[in-house]
């Protein structure tokens, strides 16, 4: 009696395994079938779906939710004008919890949904790079508005980056330090993640290569820790006058507070991640005078920018960062490409995205052969509890 039940259960499990495999293999074959040629009424009302994959919970949920809010603003704008190809646009949000494993499994889910024509994601470079091979293999266009690791776009021709490569950002940072601040002794503090280690290394190189600057110390810190005092003590002992902090927004508040308690004259420079309202909430007075290079600034007087900012604040509650503006533009790029192509054929969309010239809120965007976009930066500084552009 017991043996036959066991056998039955085992058979059921094996059959379920085959069913799962079979289900996974078929959807990629439907991608080239002309679902978008709106001949019948069924195809006409079937929505065009775009996936948004980013951390929606956890330490970096602020970023994920902000990307979703920005994407929603763009989608609402297009839907108000009739959608794309006469079909309404729908966003499907996925929470990758900022983990590579989670991202890879989400990527599998996304590519097995035949209605999804493109992906906005992910957030961290390491995570985006973990998911990218899945999108590349299944010919789904992935635009990341946030990955800045140099190797990201070269994973494949379906992988695009609508963000600065970290080298470009650091050139601006080094320029700020050398020319605007006039200090010579620079310390670097970086979080110990895929991105942080690479970006920290690039920072070191560029600072050492700059004629007037000396790199006095480089400290790696764990993202999970709130106590940076050992690293700060080492930077202080090395005599750093200005510190480049390479991390997510959660780094800057506590770091600034702890550093200013030890050395009130220290200047801090952040990367574009630093341009979020939460830094001011967490850092208070300590983050006064923090610099950052950004590709989009919320007080941009352009009417489309102001409309975006207003709708975004309505959804999210605070001003958009450059990453949010890039999310907004990335969705716009994808939709424009689909409009240009006239169908949801994946290869045609890829070619259209690569060739596109998009005048967006984060600058005039074009993609090179690898899939990188180039941006123009504004320098911002925190003064009296708000970000203002730095003219100096």
């Amino acid at each position, binding site marked *: 009696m017991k043996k036959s039940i066991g056998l039955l259960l085992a058979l059921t499990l094996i059959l379920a395994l085959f069913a799962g495999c079979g289900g996974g293999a078929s959807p990629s074959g439907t991608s080239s079938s002309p679902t978008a040629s709106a001949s019948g009424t069924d195809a006409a009302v079937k929505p065009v779906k775009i996936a948004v994959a980013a951390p929606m*919970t956890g*330490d970096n949920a602020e970023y994920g939710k902000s990307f979703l809010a920005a994407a929603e603003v763009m989608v609402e704008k297009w839907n108000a004008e009739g959608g794309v190809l006469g079909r309404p646009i729908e966003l499907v949000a996925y929470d990758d919890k900022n983990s590579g494993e989670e991202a890879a499994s989400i990527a599998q889910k996304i590519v097995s949904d035949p209605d999804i024509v493109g992906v906005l994601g992910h957030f961290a470079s390491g995570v985006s790079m973990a998911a990218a091979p899945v999108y590349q293999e299944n010919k789904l266009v992935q635009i990341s508005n946030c990955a800045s690791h140099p190797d990201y776009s070269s994973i494949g021709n379906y992988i695009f980056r609508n963000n600065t490569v970290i080298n470009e950002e650091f050139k601006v940072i080094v320029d700020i330090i050398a020319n605007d601040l006039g200090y010579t002794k620079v310390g670097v503090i970086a979080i110990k993640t895929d991105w942080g280690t690479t970006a920290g290394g690039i920072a070191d190189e560029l600072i050492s290569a700059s004629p007037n600057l000396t790199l006095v110390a480089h400290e790696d810190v764990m993202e999970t820790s709130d106590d940076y*005092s*050992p*690293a700060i*003590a080492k930077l202080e002992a090395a005599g750093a006058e200005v510190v480049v902090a390479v991390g997510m927004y959660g780094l800057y*508040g*506590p770091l600034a507070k702890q550093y200013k308690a030890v050395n009130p004259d220290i200047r801090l420079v952040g990367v574009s991640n630093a341009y979020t309202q939460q830094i001011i*909430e*967490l850092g208070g007075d300590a983050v006064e005078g923090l610099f950052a290079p950004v590709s989009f600034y919320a007080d941009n007087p352009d009417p489309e920018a102001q409309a975006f900012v207003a709708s975004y604040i309505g959804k999210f509650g605070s001003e958009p960062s450059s990453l949010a503006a890039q999310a907004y533009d990335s969705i716009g790029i994808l939709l424009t490409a689909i409009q240009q192509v006239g169908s949801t054929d994946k290869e045609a969309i890829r070619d259209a995205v690569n060739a596109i010239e998009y005048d967006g809120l984060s600058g005039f965007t074009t993609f090179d052969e690898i899939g990188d976009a180039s941006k123009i930066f504004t320098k911002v500084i925190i003064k009296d509890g708000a970000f203002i552009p730095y003219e100096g």
Partner: protein
Amino acid sequence: MLFQQLLNGLALGMAYALVAVGYSLVFGILRLVNFSHGAVYAFGAHAAAFLIGYSWGLLPAVLASVLLTGLLGVLIDRTSLRPLRKKHSPPIASLISTIGVSTILQNLLMIAMGSQKKSFPALFDFGMITIGTAKISWTQMIMFAISLVLLGVLSFIVHSTKIGLAMRGVEQNGKAASLMGIDNNFIVTFTFFLGGASAAIAGVLISGYYQVFYPTMGFMVGLKAFSAAVLGGIGALHGAVLGGLLIGVAESLAATWMGSAYRDSVAFLILILVLVVRPSGLFGRKGITKV
């Protein structure tokens, strides 16, 4: 710089000591490692921040948070541990149960208050004191003082009051204690209440020092505090404080000499060493057989 790192280590260590005292207390009386202590500590910080957000004064919010967190400790005991004791389950079942409670609590906090780091009002922020070339902040000194006071109060309760006598009796022999007229269940409830209350105090102090709080704050601190409690001899309250200080200093020195990336590993390396070389820790009693 070494002196400064030492001071940093002592300050950090005091934070671990505050949490480690709770572990030692519960283990000392119940022979149970309460892994939900880290999550209860995070709850304490969140409760205080929540009440402060509703414009309660600092002191009323902290007192209310201590009360609430104590009650949470009691709730955890009633719902997840008492049924296991009734069934005479092996001690490891209770241990695993507390791990589960920890995850549940953390996720409930995430759902209720959001998972991002949030700002906690600064406590005792009176500036820095300079000792030679090193600086230490008033907050750190006051944390030190409050931890010693907490240690004193808990030790007093356990060693010099009737209820403390009952707690020690229950720990030595549960059956005999109940034969002597002690209500075992009440003693266990009281122990968990004390544990929760001390976790809340730790939570408020540490959040006030770093000025951030978030649902997973109890995870790393909880594990390191556990190492600290084991190092000091789990069950001995003064051992927990000493263990916490040692781990804090070790972490700080490791960050200085080996780089900040090795900070976390040092605490767990010490845990392994202690368990291999001298499992009863510095002040613990020998002959611990239960899990």
